[in-house]
């Protein structure tokens, strides 16, 4: 107990703060490469949240797939296009201001509509063993076997599609 809060509550607060800060940096940093790196840090904070929620399998998959594969793909494309701070297009101040106002209004609407959710209950940590690989694998291969196979077909189709689009000339 520290200042009346438990360790998990402190961790939740710190991870949330960091996630929101890095997410803001993604939107506001001018250099696309640093934008990508801040997004990687945001994903690490979200993986920490998954660990807090006792979803270890998803935390590992999140780091491997998002931080390891998807963000490296983004980085490769940005470096191939040679984007940097000088080539970065900027919106006018007016449209940025309008975007901020629209986001603020959306936030007000969402917070107002989610206000009554406090009665739903607490997320308890450390009790549930459901997020472990063994239990999740059982559910995945028993109840969700068909969607799992469909996902593999989807990934194959995306692979073929990406290669076809990326080819120099389509005959």
């Amino acid at each position, binding site marked *: 107990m520290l200042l009346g809060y438990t360790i998990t509550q402190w961790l939740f607060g710190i991870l949330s703060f960091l996630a929101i800060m890095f*997410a803001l940096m993604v939107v506001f940093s001018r250099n696309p490469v640093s*934008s990508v790196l801040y997004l990687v840090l945001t994903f690490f904070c979200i993986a920490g949240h998954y660990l807090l929620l006792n*979803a270890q399998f998803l935390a590992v998959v999140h780091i491997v797939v998002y931080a390891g594969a998807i963000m490296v793909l983004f980085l490769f494309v940005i470096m191939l*296009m040679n984007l940097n701070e000088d080539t970065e*297009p900027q919106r006018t101040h007016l449209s940025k201001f309008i975007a901020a106002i629209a986001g603020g209004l959306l*936030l007000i609407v969402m917070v107002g509509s989610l206000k009554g959710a406090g009665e739903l209950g607490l*997320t308890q940590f450390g009790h549930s063993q459901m997020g472990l690989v063994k239990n999740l694998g059982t559910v995945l291969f028993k109840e969700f076997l068909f969607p799992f196979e469909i996902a593999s077909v989807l990934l194959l189709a995306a692979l073929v599609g*990406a290669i076809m689009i990326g080819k120099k000339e389509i005959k």
Partner: protein
Amino acid sequence: MLNGIPINYYLLLSAVLFIIGAVGVMARRNSIIIFMCIELMLNAVNLLLVAFSTLHNDAAGQVFVFFIMAVAAAEVAVGLAILSMIYRNVKHIDTDVLTNLKN
């Protein structure tokens, strides 16, 4: 409230992350940054799904997040291929330049 975090904290965190992503889509002109903001919005939703699956002690939510990750990976592969193709032909990925469909 001994060990738990109230679910509405997670709701608030996800809402804030989602709205940061939405503001990014509205405020930026670089297509790749817009794409990254869409990933951020997807992740906000994923976080909320995991929180609710822990709350209700139901593994279906986490399996669903797993499928969302697979679909997001496919989406990013195809999307970045399209973007690099556009860049090869137009030499730009600024959304204010790519207005061929408008006229």
